[in-house]
């Protein structure tokens, strides 16, 4: 049990990479990249967890601050990462639409042969 979350995180990373390698469509590859990124979020949050600890928020209802909470530093890293990686996915999707406009296809194997 102490290693199961890390295994799931590495599994998501490897499965996402497998999807990119075997993909026939650029948009499918972009979504597999998104799955790989989710694997890193699971890894970060798993590193910060402590059994029977509370979330690191003391505001509502106002409770006495204690040190028996889950690690807030990795949560801060993960939450900005989620929003930023969504915009990077948007940039990649915009690139994919432009590629389709110029070359008429979204297949990575066909695109490799279009030179010159």
């Amino acid at each position, binding site marked *: 049990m102490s290693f199961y979350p890390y295994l799931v995180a590495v599994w998501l990373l490897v*499965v996402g990479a*497998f999807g990119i390698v075997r993909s026939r469509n650029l*948009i499918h590859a972009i*979504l597999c990249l998104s799955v790989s990124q989710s694997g890193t979020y*699971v890894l970060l949050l798993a590193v910060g967890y402590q059994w029977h600890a509370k979330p690191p928020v003391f505001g509502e209802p106002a409770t006495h601050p204690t040190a028996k909470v889950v690690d807030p530093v990795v949560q801060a890293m993960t939450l900005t990462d989620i929003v930023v990686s969504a915009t990077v996915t948007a940039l990649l999707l*915009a690139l994919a639409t432009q590629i389709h406009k110029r070359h008429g296809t979204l297949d990575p194997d066909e695109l490799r042969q279009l030179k010159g």
Partner: protein
Amino acid sequence: MMVLIVIMLSVVGLAGTAVVLTGEPQRQALMLSAFGVASGLLFMVLQAPDVALSEIGVGTAIVPLMVMLAVRKTERRN
């Protein structure tokens, strides 16, 4: 608590595999939305409400919408 965490981790792993194994991007966008909800629940169970808010807002609504619009734009010219 431990059982809940193990179950949610397995659901997230299966949903991620399903997203990768789906062929068409339109269906994949819906699977990604479900994967976002499962991830959000996993983050809640791991006592991270801020991260769960972020993931549900982004992974369930924004990314699938953009993928559907990109698919619509690229399949028109076929």
